[in-house]
């Protein structure tokens, strides 16, 4: 565990369409959280959220950056991408809604479950999007909340 007041920062670049690298940021963060002895349930909630978000940038945007901050209280994740943006965010949050291309579906994605999955696994989630410019997704997972539901 980290001391109060100390935090670790990470930054990753993601390229749209690069499915072979999708998940490397999530994998890196998982290793760090394991080393910090964070509870396994919390690790899984954090990396599943991050992975879904990372795959969304690969699947739906042109490129993006991921910023992760780990403190003694929470794991904060910020994803900023350049891409088509999301026209109707509440619709995108619905289970089953997807605009994924056939190529994305071939990779095993496009069920329209990623964003609802992030919502379920995180303690805080916020999406901002400008159509034609890109999307910003903010996710927080509290280190001491093991029940897996938003408070």
């Amino acid at each position, binding site marked *: 565990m980290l001391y109060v007041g100390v935090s670790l920062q990470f930054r990753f670049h993601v390229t749209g369409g690069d*499915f*072979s690298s*999708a*998940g490397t940021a*999530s*994998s890196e963060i*998982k290793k760090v959280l394991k080393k910090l002895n964070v509870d*396994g349930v919390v690790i*899984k909630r954090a*990396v*599943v959220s991050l*992975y*879904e978000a990372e*795959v969304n940038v690969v699947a739906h945007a042109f490129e993006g950056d991921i910023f992760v901050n780990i403190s003694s209280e929470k794991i904060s994740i910020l994803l900023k991408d350049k891409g088509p943006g999301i026209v109707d965010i509440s619709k995108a949050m619905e289970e089953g809604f997807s605009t994924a291309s056939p190529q994305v579906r071939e*990779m*095993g*994605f*496009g*069920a*329209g*479950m*990623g964003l609802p*999955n992030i919502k*379920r696994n995180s303690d805080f989630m916020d999406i901002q999007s400008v159509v034609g410019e890109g999307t910003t997704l903010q996710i927080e997972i509290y280190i001491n909340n093991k029940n*897996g539901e938003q408070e």
Partner: protein
Amino acid sequence: MRLKKIIDLLEGNLLCGEERLNDEVEFAFASDLMSDVLTVADSEILLITGLANIQTIRTSEMSDISHVLLVRNKRVTQEMLSLAIENGIALIESPYSMFKVCGILYNLGIKPVF
């Protein structure tokens, strides 16, 4: 049921993860949709899938899944194999279809997660 028994029953072939042959498998989940797999909170499951690409292994890594069975002899790439080895995942291929694999395992008492 021991993993090695499952491999025998399904005419399977273990590609990596020999150290897991004696693992007990109690639950299984079958899907080709990775976001579907990512909704499963339990980790101690056998993942049965027809999707054979690097994201199958990444998804298993994120979900703490240690046993992955690919149906219908899907081709495994070197990239998939390396990532599975790195994460201590037992990767098995079977010539049987998804339906046949699920039918056999269900009959023998392997339980669903939902």
